[in-house]
């Protein structure tokens, strides 16, 4: 069922009711998903309030948000899912539930992972944006090649070749010794925590 968005914006009650009937499920599902993934539990009253908040924001300031939707650029379902997700995260952020660390933190222990390699020099355009994106999806987000391909909207071979070229460039860069530090011939050796390097 198509809903007349222009009529909704003009304030037509019947069109708005049809819009609510059609899209409340999509908005509800997106809010529920955002709450579950960030909180681990769901407070039904909170979800319902947030769904209502999404509708309020769509209408606020003379339907400013609803007017910003362009059917030529995205489907209404995807757009509403993103808007609902954004409202839910905003609400969670404002609420800031108190959190308790699971384990006491020992400041003497170095952080276990991913120290910033600030002493390595990597030129801005060593990797293209797509190469960086592909490496982040595959290595940071743990995506498989088909998943990364679907995410970016390209074929799997493009992902494989982009990844291969990116890694080759990185290896060549470090093999040529173009780093600022290190005393290890420019190869990107294990990164030491800052405290260890000060000693």
């Amino acid at each position, binding site marked *: 069922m198509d809903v007349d968005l222009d009529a909704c914006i003009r304030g037509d009650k019947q069109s708005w009711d049809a819009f609510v009937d059609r899209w*409340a499920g999509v908005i509800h599902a*997106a809010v529920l998903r955002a709450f579950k993934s960030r909180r681990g539990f769901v407070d039904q009253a909170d979800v319902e309030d947030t769904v209502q908040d999404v509708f309020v924001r769509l209408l606020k300031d003379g339907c400013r948000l609803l007017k910003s939707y362009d059917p030529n*650029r995205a489907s209404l379902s995807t757009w509403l899912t993103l808007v609902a*997700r954004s409202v839910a995260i905003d609400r969670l952020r404002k609420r800031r539930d108190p959190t308790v660390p699971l384990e006491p933190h020992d400041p003497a222990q170095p952080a276990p992972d*991913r120290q910033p*390699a600030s002493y390595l020099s990597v030129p801005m355009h060593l990797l293209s944006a*797509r190469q960086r*994106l592909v490496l982040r999806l595959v290595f940071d987000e743990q995506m*498989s090649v088909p998943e990364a391909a679907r*995410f970016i909207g390209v074929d799997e071979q493009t992902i494989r070749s982009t990844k291969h070229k990116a890694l080759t460039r990185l290896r060549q860069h470090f093999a040529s010794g173009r780093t600022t530090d290190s005393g290890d011939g420019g190869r990107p050796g294990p990164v030491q925590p800052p405290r260890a390097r000060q000693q």
Partner: protein
Amino acid sequence: MNSHEPANDDGRQLWRRIDGALPREPSACVSPLELAGFADDRLSDQDRQAVEGHLADCGACREALLDIAGADREARAFVPPSVIDAAKGLVGRSRDDAGRWILGTIGALGAAAASIAICFVGYRVGSAWYGPDEILAEEALLSEMSFGLLASGEPDLDLLADAFEEMTP
């Protein structure tokens, strides 16, 4: 999610070593419409490239897209009726409702006007039948009665009964 391939390990380690040193190209976050367009594959090549460039360096927007990639964007989940009713209540009356409201209001106003007209006509008819002379006599009698009551301090029931008999046509 990930097919763990030993061949990947070397690349992964290399990536982990240099990731923090990679310069990021700061750019303003893309709008929900642009992100949705990227997810739906409806952007022009130029816009798509711009969003892709932003996604390479913005974890928040990447996360948003990853979130909706798994979402059922055509969900028809059960939504409590109270939520639906509250959302519908955000927008006022429809044209039909407004028409009904206007007709109802006109009806109520008409009934009120008819009541006033009936009262007015009744008053005029009553006044014509129960003329000004009778009204003056009645007022004089009531005035006398009030004076008598005030003077004696107690009501004279016979006087009152006579007065009412006289007032009755």
